Structures are given as structure tokens and as C-alpha cells.
């Protein structure tokens, strides 16, 4: 079930009806839990067993770690739980890669297995892992209620594509009574519509162009390829940020606060800042549970560089078992390391030489170019296509010229949006706008305008959310 479908509208209306008639706070938890499982089971009912098992394992080990006083036993429980959860994730995501590597190394011919990657497996596994690790570090208490914990893992707004919510953020909210408040409803609607506009109007329209060009980059001109690179940069941002915003909006409507997942990443002036603004919940998850566990920046310059590289490489592999993601993650890791060295040794000198404005503009331009170029391996189906794309991108070639008009219009609108944001336009910076600041006419106008744009300009064949595959 996806947010932009008619099925979801019916599902959500029924859910609100049920929540309204459930007077008891506990009933509301059960209603939300049932709704979350229906939401997930709608995709494939078989995998409900998986999410349920992962949750129960997480809850049990969380409890065992919390009640255990001996350090060694706590550590054993932690290692056991992490191993089980990562094995389950690895089986679905990497088993065929493992078979491929085995066949390659041992010259065998073991057939690949027909493994369907369960939607959102990375997200609910990461939710559970963070819960267990936080209990181990005594950051949070164990959740006593199994129902609440099952809901924390499966809470439908953020279940299939994030944001990755920490137990410390969501579990306390589940202890409070679910109440519908006017300001939450209005803010939720704004967030949902804002997300839907990003997904349906921007990302889906761009995908019509991007998909064609990435399918056969060998036949288009250099300028068409450049347009496709930036179009994909905007597509993946709006697809993912749009989904996150819708998720946050749906949760807000129900009275829950989910953390921000994107903060205008293309306004970043260096790669470190980009990762503070892009997929914030995953970046911070990797920082807190992987980078810091590896030693972070506490063990010298070289080790910091290595830790950053490993973290980003694994972050790349998290997206899938392919060389393209290794290249993408690895190069981001190297760039983060270089950026750190740059700031230590060169940044100030260059700033003095070319002035602050020039330096800012240059940093922003380089960051934008670097991030967008690295989307090429991320988007390409294989290494060969990536190589061909780069080859044709930097050499003037014969080919078909295609300046897709909707893409040009959307890129112009998105550029204006980013420029306005840079000038701190309050309606963009303070989104969702406090509904009490607007009069009824403005509220209704925004609602209807967004509605018309959505239904008039959405492509006939909506593309699936890109991050569902991860």
C-alpha cells in the first residue's frame, strides 16, 4: 500500500474512524498495531511473520539485556541479537551476492535462490537494532509492553521507507494517549500534501525522462546526459524526501512527531554538510551505531579516515549488493575524509585568497556537482552502463538531443524553491506553516491548489518509491 494510492485513502479514513470510536487508550494502540500490520501485509502477507519475528526477538533480547546485571552476559545477549538480526537482513539482501562470489572463487555453479526482498526490511531491522543497542548502553529502559514494541517497529507511516525512528523518540509517545488535535491535523495535511507534491508532481514527472535516458545512455547527446544527471538528482531527492514528508505528515495527523529526514541537502556547501542534510535518520544512525562504534575520530587522523570510509562503504552496500553501490559509498567515504583534511589544512587559506562569497559559491558548486555525478552509479543498472554514461558525459558525441520540456520546467521550479529557501523565505523555512497564522481563505486555497496540481499534473503511470527497494 502506498501513500499516493486510492487504497491508502480508504485505509486511512477507516483507521481514523476506528481510532475515534476506540475510547480506551490501549485499544487505540491495538488499532494502530492492526492497521500497521494490514498496511504491511497488503504488500505480501507472508512477510508479516518476518516483521513479527524480528520485533519479538528485539523485544526479548532488549528485556534480557535490561534485567541482566553481569556485563559479560549483557554483551553476549547484545552480540547474539545483533547477529540474528543482521543474518536475517543479510540473507534477504546479500545471499545471492554471496553465492555469486562463492561460484566465482571456487569455480562452482550453485544456482541463485529466488529471494524476494521484503519491503522495508532494512528499516525495521535498524529500528530494532537501535533499540537493543540503546538499552545496552543504558540510554533507554526496556519497553515492558510487547504490543507497544510491536507498534514501534511496525508503525505504518515510517515502516517501509523511514525515517528511521529511535526508540527514545517514538516509544515515549506511544505511552501518551492518542488524541486528534486541530493543529496536528492541519500540520499533518500540509506535510502530507507537500510530500505528495514532491513525489507525484516532481519525482514522477522527472522519472519519465530519467528512466529513458538511463536505459540507453549510449544514444543521447552529451547535453541530454547532463540534463538527466541533474534531473535524477532532483528525482531521488523529491521521491525520498517526499515520502518522508508524507510519513511525517501522516504521523503528525495521528498526533505523533517523527524526526526530520531531509533538510534541503542541495544547499549544502560541503560533503559533510550534505550528509547532515540528506537522509538524516540513516546518516545519524550510521554515525551513532557504526562510525562511533568503530572509534569515530578518537583514534587519530588515519583511523578517522578509515572509519569514515568503512561507514560510507557499508552505507553504500546497505542500498544493495552491487559494485555500483560500492563505488557510490566508497567515493562518498573518500570525499568525507578529504573534506575533513581540507578544512584542517587549506580551507582558511583559500577563503582568504578568493573571498567568502566566492568560496561559498565554489564550495556549493563543487558539492552539488560531486553529489550529482555520484548518482550515476547509484542509478545505473550495472557497472557497464555507469562506465558508458561517464564516458559519454565528458566527451562530445553524436546522438539524439532531448531536452524534455517538463523536466526543464521542473528544474527551474526546484531551483527557484532552493533560491527562495536560501533567502530564508519564512513559508519554506517554517514548514509546516502554523495554521493559526493563516486565515481560512489561505488555508483552503493552499489545500485546493495542491490538490489540483496533484491530480492534474501527475503522470498516468506513477513510479514506485525508489527507496522501497532498499
Amino acid at each position, binding site marked *: 500500500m502506498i501513500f499516493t494510492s*486510492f487504497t491508502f485513502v480508504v485505509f486511512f479514513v477507516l483507521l481514523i474512524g476506528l481510532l475515534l470510536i476506540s475510547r480506551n487508550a490501549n485499544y487505540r494502540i491495538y488499532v494502530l498495531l492492526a492497521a500497521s500490520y494490514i498496511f504491511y501485509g497488503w504488500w505480501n502477507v507472508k512477510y508479516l511473520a518476518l516483521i513479527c519475528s524480528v520485533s519479538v526477538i528485539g523485544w526479548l533480547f532488549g528485556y534480557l539485556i535490561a534485567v541482566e546485571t553481569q556485563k559479560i552476559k549483557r554483551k553476549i545477549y547484545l552480540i547474539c541479537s545483533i547477529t540474528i538480526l543482521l543474518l536475517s537482513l543479510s540473507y534477504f539482501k546479500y545471499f545471492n551476492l554471496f553465492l555469486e562470489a562463492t561460484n566465482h572463487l571456487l569455480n562452482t555453479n550453485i544456482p541463485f535462490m529466488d529471494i524476494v526482498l521484503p519491503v522495508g526490511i532494512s528499516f525495521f531491522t535498524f529500528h530494532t537494532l537501535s533499540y537493543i543497542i540503546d538499552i545496552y548502553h543504558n540510554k533507554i529502559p526496556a519497553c515492558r509492553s510487547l504490543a507497544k514494541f510491536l507498534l514501534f517497529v511496525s508503525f505504518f507511516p515510517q515502516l517501509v521507507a523511514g525515517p528511521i525512528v529511535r526508540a527514545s523518540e517514538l516509544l515515549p509517545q506511544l505511552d501518551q494517549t492518542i488524541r486528534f488535535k486541530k493543529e496536528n491535523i492541519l500540520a499533518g495535511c500540509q506535510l502530507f500534501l507537500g510530500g505528495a507534491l514532491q513525489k507525484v508532481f516532481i519525482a514522477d514527472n522527472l522519472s*519519465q525522462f530519467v528512466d*529513458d535516458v538511463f536505459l*540507453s545512455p*549510449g*544514444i543521447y547527446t552529451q547535453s541530454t546526459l547532463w540534463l538527466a544527471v541533474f534531473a535524477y538528482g532532483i528525482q531521488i531527492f523529491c521521491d525520498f524526501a517526499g515520502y518522508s514528508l508524507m510519513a511525517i505528515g501522516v504521523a503528525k495527523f495521528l498526533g505523533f512527531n517523527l524526526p526530520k529526514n531531509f533538510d534541503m541537502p542541495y544547499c549544502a556547501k560541503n560533503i559533510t554538510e550534505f550528509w547532515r542534510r540528506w537522509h538524516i535518520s540513516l546518516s545519524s544512525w550510521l554515525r551513532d551505531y557504526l562510525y562511533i562504534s568503530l572509534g569515530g575520530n578518537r583514534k587519530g587522523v588515519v583511523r578517522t579516515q578509515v572509519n569514515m570510509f568503512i561507514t560510507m562503504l557499508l552505507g553504500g552496500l546497505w542500498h544493495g549488493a552491487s559494485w555500483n553501490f560500492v563505488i557510490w559509498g566508497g567515493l562518498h567515504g573518500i570525499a568525507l575524509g578529504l573534506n575533513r583534511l581540507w578544512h584542517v589544512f587549506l580551507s582558511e587559506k583559500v577563503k582568504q585568497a578568493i573571498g567568502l562569497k566566492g568560496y561559498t559559491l565554489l564550495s556549493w558548486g563543487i558539492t552539488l556537482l560531486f553529489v550529482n555525478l555520484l548518482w550515476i552509479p547509484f542509478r545505473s543498472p550495472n557497472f557497464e552502463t555507469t562506465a558508458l554514461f561517464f564516458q559519454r558525459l565528458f566527451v562530445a*558525441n*553524436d*546522438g*539524439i*538531443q*532531448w*531536452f*524534455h*520540456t*517538463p523536466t526543464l520546467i521542473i528544474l527551474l521550479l526546484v531551483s527557484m524553491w532552493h533560491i527562495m529557501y536560501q533567502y530564508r523565505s519564512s513559508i519554506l523555512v517554517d514548514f509546516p506553516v502554523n495554521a493559526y497564522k493563516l486565515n*481560512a*481563505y489561505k488555508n*483552503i*486555497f493552499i489545500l*485546493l*491548489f495542491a490538490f*489540483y496540481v496533484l*491530480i*492534474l499534473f*501527475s503522470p*498516468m503511470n506513477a513510479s514506485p518509491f525508489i527507496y522501497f527497494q532498499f
Partner: protein
Amino acid sequence: MNKAYILSISIKFILVFIGITLLAELGVRLFVTAPSNHIFDPEIGFRYRPYTELFLATEGFARNKVNALGINDDEYDPNKRLKKAIVIGDSYTEARQVDRQANFTSLAEQNLAAWDIINAGRDGLHILNTYEVAKRITKTVQADLIVLVMSNGDFIDDLSNSNIHLTLKGNELIDVGIKAEQKEHLKGYAEWLTQHSALAVQLIRQFKPIIVDTYINILAAFNHKRNEDANLENQALSSARHIVEKKEILDVLLTKLRAIAPVAILYINQIEYNSPNDAYPAKKPADTAAQMQEIAAKRKISFINTANYLIKQYYKNRQSPFGFMNNHILGGHLNENGHQAVALALSDLIRQVEQGENN
């Protein structure tokens, strides 16, 4: 919330709704589409209301006017003492995506001084309905030639349509036909609205899959008995269709059309690319063009496959002959570049017919 508040909000909502709907109507008319000009027609699904606009900016951005005959062509002048070729086909022929002067029938007319070429294409026209269109148009136009424009879809999809009626005499197929599909009736219900509002047209277009599915499901639920009868009829037809090949259906159609005027076939072949220097005729599904050519040869009907013309045109300027900047560029309908190539093919086809007559 008291009654006064609810009333005040409702009034505000209605005012804003009316305002924004009018704005949306204007925006859609300017940039997306025109109000519908379809008139339900039980024989061919729909026909165009004369003197209305053809405009759909999702592919190209051309605005054309339908003439008095209800086709995308200049007004017919019976006093022109020229030979008349009626070109019949679906959206490839209608060519609403480009300005009328740039479509292949207009361009071919410039190449052939002795011919008046009449574009009788209509979006979505089923290949078997070309007979009905030819019959109607020849009431006004004395045709010297009918050019049937076909593409892969006409042969593969149209001739597999389960609504085709086959008339058999023993094992011999003697007649074929097709009536408007069930979903075409739907247009009748919203005709007033869609003929006055471009916004309604666009909204219906966006929700078409949901609307059509729901309608068909409702019909199915309420017409159990009728469906059972239809199923029995369909079973009989399917078994009949099983022994009838697509080629035979087309053969019967050609016989019927030839009773009206001599016939020629223009086959529009999509092209594909291995690299910018290697364009080739699309072959999926295989041998459609070859089968068409075989039928034409058997009947001694002039036939031209446009593939080589389109490839030649591509190499001339390295631009795709299909597709538009605002849609897909490698597929879809013919663009101005493609129309130039097909115009040459049509001119050659008509010359071929003339030569055949002279011989």
C-alpha cells in the same frame, strides 16, 4: 464548532473552490487540452464534432481544427479537379501532435500536384472501423484511392480484439466487423460536462483506469444474465477465431474496402537504435511488416513499409522521427521529422499506384 462557524467555513470553501476551479479550467485550456469534441457513435466508438479544436499538449503542442467532415484536414473543396486519395488510420494518421501543414498527408499533397489527399485518421480508430469511415466519407468525396495506414498495433492488438464479430459460411470467413466497446458508452454519460470543460476532460483522463474498471465491474455485477449470454457468444466466437488467422480478417477487410475504391497500404514501422550510428526497424513482435507485405502482394495491393524512409531521415539530421520533447523521444507518435519521411513514403506509394494503373 457552532453552526455559524461551519456556515462561514463552508461559504469560504465554496468561494475559493469556484475561484480556483475557474483558474484551473483556464490553465488546462491554455496548456493541457481542449474540451472534448467526441460524439458517441455506436459504430466506431466516437466521431469528432465539426469545427472544434484538437489539442492535447501531453505530446507535442499543436492546435488543429476539425473540418466540416469531422476530420483533421482542410475544408473539402468538391470543385478541385484533382484525384482524391483518402488516407484512413488511427492517431498516426490523424497527427494531432503536429500542425496540420506539417503532417504527412499535407506534405505529400505538396509533392503530388494531381492529388487531393484527405486525412481521415482518427485517434484510436480500430482497423476494422476503417471500412465504416471509408463508407461515410465517400458519400461526400469521390475517392480514387484509399490508403490504409497501419502499424504494428493495428495488426497485433486490433485484430486480437475479443469484440470482433466474425461471419462464417462453413469454414469460410465472409464478413468481419466491430462495434463500439462497452466502455465507450461511458462517454455519453459525461458528454455535456466534458464538452464544456477542459478541466473535466483532464480529470477524467487522469482517473480513467479507476472509472473504466469500476464501470465495467458494476455492469458485470448487475448484468449477470447478460454476461452469461455474452460469455456463451464469446466462447463461440473464440472458437471461430481460433480457426481464423489475423491475415484472413485483414483479407476480408481489404475486400470490403476495395469494393469502395482501390486500396494501398502504408505501414508505419517504429525504429530502434543500437547506437547513434546504428538505427534499425523495430522487429518486435517479429515479422508483422512481412505478414502485411505478404497479404498485400497476394491481393496485388501497393504496399510501402516506412522503416527505410524513417531511418534515412534520422541519418539526415540525427533526430528521432518519433516522439516529442515533452514526452518520450524514441517512441510514441511521429514528430515533424517523422512526418517528412512518411510524406515521402506516401508520395512514393501513390506514384506506385499511378504507375500500376498506367501499366
